[in-house]
């Protein structure tokens, strides 16, 4: 069997596994967020928090919960890193510098997991396990909570009530992420991912002498890193490191983990709005983009254009032998079309066009299938834009799921889709115009520009992967990328929750002969088109200067 066929079969197996998993998991999550009863441990948590989980919140209250919890999280994680030198179980590692600690705290709370530090030499057991890994759970749970609030906006009418933030966030952790991550972590350990607290220890070598290894709670972090679409590696090499991703099977399993919740949430959506076919239309849109991007990536990576790759006879720079080109291509697309940002191979050394595909994946807004929660709400906002465009074409007030998309709704949706492009383009332009940021580049020419464009695209879209030649541990990059992450995470959430509140207040409009049927393939086609056209118009000039210039030159 050739590597291309093996790659296609791996993609097919992944599609099969996701198809099998998304119905039970999606239906289960719908039950989780609709259940009246609380688990005993949850009641105990609510008592500690001092919140009544049965109080319904309107959108401003829900948003205040999101922002308060996230603000406290940033502060806590910042202080933890600044105090590392004094904490036990920190291997004697020093405190993290203020700018890097700010960047890292923001990065993990916003579900980005951009890393300007090297895990091996910077973060001890306590910061990794009780700081960073905790945010891997709760930042994902916050994203899911906001998505569920938007879904309730469509499902409810004449109320304005969106549920309870504390209940939604806690249930996301206790009923979805924690059991899922525990099971996944055991599978990963069984395949060779390490899980110990042996700190830094000496291990003998074949040619004599010894080398120093980092021990750590890697499997437990790796599992939730993928399942919660986080992506921050325990080690610098992330999921290319054999202790994070030891075998071809773990590689495919990790890709499955990072896709399974975002894809399954379309089912949750369908069940909660009372029409699983609406969920299928969203699922089909996500799946079409994801499969299309994987196909393009495999095509360009197997063709290995570019002087160094042509000379080498294959696109193996920055890739591991056990994964090869096919499996690495699937991982690269899946991690950039979700908000994960974990890598099993290094995007900077992909072909020019391959690097461009990873960039474009993030620029779509990470909605195919996107991050845990953020993918679904991002895609639903795009669906509103698509019905609006369709409404303009036929001269009718647009409707989606029985809700009128009026001035207020379309304004909020438009604000949502303007946030990340504004952040990416303004910060990239500023970094290019200033004299010093360019000193951080490893590569020159078009690819050097791509390194900076990639950094801001990754930060503003909360992805976290990098064209990692860029030395991002500078005051400028730690600060501006940190700002891009905060604004790129929470401004869209403000617009989504306001939109949800506005939708939940409406009285439903009846379906008539003139209603655009949003559960039909025609709408899926329209939605895919709208996404590609809007992203293309926004980013084409930037892409032309970077990856397209590089890719077409070779």
């Amino acid at each position, binding site marked *: 069997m050739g590597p291309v066929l*093996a790659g296609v079969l791996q993609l097919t197996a992944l599609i099969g596994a996701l198809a099998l998993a998304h119905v039970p998991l999606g239906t289960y999550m719908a039950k989780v967020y609709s259940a009246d009863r609380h688990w005993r441990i949850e009641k105990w948590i609510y008592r500690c928090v001092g919140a009544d989980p049965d109080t319904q919140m309107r959108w401003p209250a829900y948003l205040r919960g999101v922002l308060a919890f996230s603000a406290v999280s940033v502060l806590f994680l910042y202080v933890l890193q600044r105090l590392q030198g004094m904490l036990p179980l920190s291997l004697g590692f020093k405190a993290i510098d203020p700018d890097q600690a700010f960047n890292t705290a923001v990065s993990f709370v916003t579900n980005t997991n951009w890393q300007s530090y090297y895990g091996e030499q910077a973060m001890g057991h306590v910061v990794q396990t009780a700081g960073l890994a905790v945010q891997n759970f709760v930042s994902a749970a916050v994203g899911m909570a906001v998505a569920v609030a938007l879904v309730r906006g469509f499902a409810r009418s004449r109320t304005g009530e969106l549920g309870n933030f504390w209940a939604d966030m806690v249930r996301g952790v206790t009923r979805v992420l924690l059991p899922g*991550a525990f099971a996944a972590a055991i599978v990963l350990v069984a395949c060779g991912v390490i899980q110990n607290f*042996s700190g830094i220890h000496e291990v003998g070598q074949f040619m004599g002498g010894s080398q120093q290894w980092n021990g750590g709670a890697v499997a437990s972090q790796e599992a939730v890193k993928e399942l919660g679409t986080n992506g921050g590696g325990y080690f610098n090499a992330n999921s290319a490191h054999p202790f994070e991703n030891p075998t071809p099977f773990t590689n495919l399993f990790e890709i499955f983990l990072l896709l399974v919740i975002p894809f399954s949430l379309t089912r949750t959506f369908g069940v909660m709005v009372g029409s699983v076919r609406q969920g299928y239309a969203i699922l089909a849109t996500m799946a079409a983009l994801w499969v299309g991007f994987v196909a393009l990536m495999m095509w360009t990576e197997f063709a290995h254009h570019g002087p*160094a790759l042509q000379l080498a006879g294959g696109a193996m720079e920055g890739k591991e032998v056990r994964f090869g080109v096919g499996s690495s291509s699937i991982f690269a697309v899946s991690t950039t079309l979700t908000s994960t940002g974990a890598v099993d191979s290094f995007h900077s050394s992909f072909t020019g066009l391959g690097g461009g595909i990873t960039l474009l994946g993030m620029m779509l807004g990470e909605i195919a299938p996107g991050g845990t929660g953020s993918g679904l709400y991002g895609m639903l906002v795009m669906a509103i834009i698509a019905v609006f465009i369709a409404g303009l074409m036929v001269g009718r007030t647009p409707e989606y799921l029985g809700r009128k998309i009026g001035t207020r709704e379309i304004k909020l949706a438009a604000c949502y889709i303007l946030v990340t492009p504004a952040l990416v383009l303004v910060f990239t332009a500023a970094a290019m115009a200033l004299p010093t940021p360019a000193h951080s580049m490893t590569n020159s020419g078009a690819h050097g520009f791509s390194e900076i464009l990639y950094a801001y695209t990754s930060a503003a879209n909360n992805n976290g992967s990098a064209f990692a030649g860029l030395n991002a541990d500078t005051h400028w990059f730690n600060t501006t990328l940190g700002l891009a992450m905060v604004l790129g995470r929470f401004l869209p959430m403000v617009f989504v929750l306001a939109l949800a509140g506005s939708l939940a207040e409406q009285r439903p409009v009846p379906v008539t002969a003139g209603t655009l049927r949003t559960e039909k393939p025609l709408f899926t086609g329209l939605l895919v088109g709208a996404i590609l056209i809007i992203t293309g118009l926004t980013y084409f000039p930037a892409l032309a200067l970077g990856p397209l210039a590089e890719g077409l030159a070779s």
Partner: protein
Amino acid sequence: MNNSFVNTARLLGAGLRALLVLTVLTGVLYPLAVTGVAQAFFPTKANGSQIKADGKVVGSSLIGQQGYGLDYFQPRLANGLGENSVNKQYALILSGATNRSADNPQLVKWVQEAKARVVKDNSTADYKVRPSQVPADAVTSSGSGLDPDISRAYAEIQVRRVAERNGLAVAQVEKLVEEHTSGRTLGFIGEPRVNVLELNIAVRELVART
């Protein structure tokens, strides 16, 4: 006092309590539970899949090593591997890739040099390696810098050199490569590969026996 200030403080207090209790759950109990299960049922794997030769630990089957002499099979390049720049009381290995782009002149040079070296090192008196035989993994750096494997093709072109330098028959070394080649998982997942450390341990044992 201002009412909204009190409300904000109350909300932030709730957020902090929620974070602390979830930290205990997901940041303490969860990793300890996973560690408990891992150490009870998969102790070797949870501690890094170390392998021994002659009773001594010589590394991990998962972590590639550098610095093998030409008597042994050579691993992939690791031009992206680094040394620690902070907390220098340790000598840590920083995993990583070169991050050089496909059109980077330095990467082109690295590939050229590696190709020339692979051809020269592996050509023996009666066996000339052609540049077109050299596979891509032999001249590129891996993603982690710790890739434990090489492709079958890269192992094949090293067989004669290793046999000659150790006074072994080519067929014997060929057989070792065959034994240490793993196919794709279930026939289609990942790529076929040869674990360099395990192969070199086998070479050393064979030399000791003959």
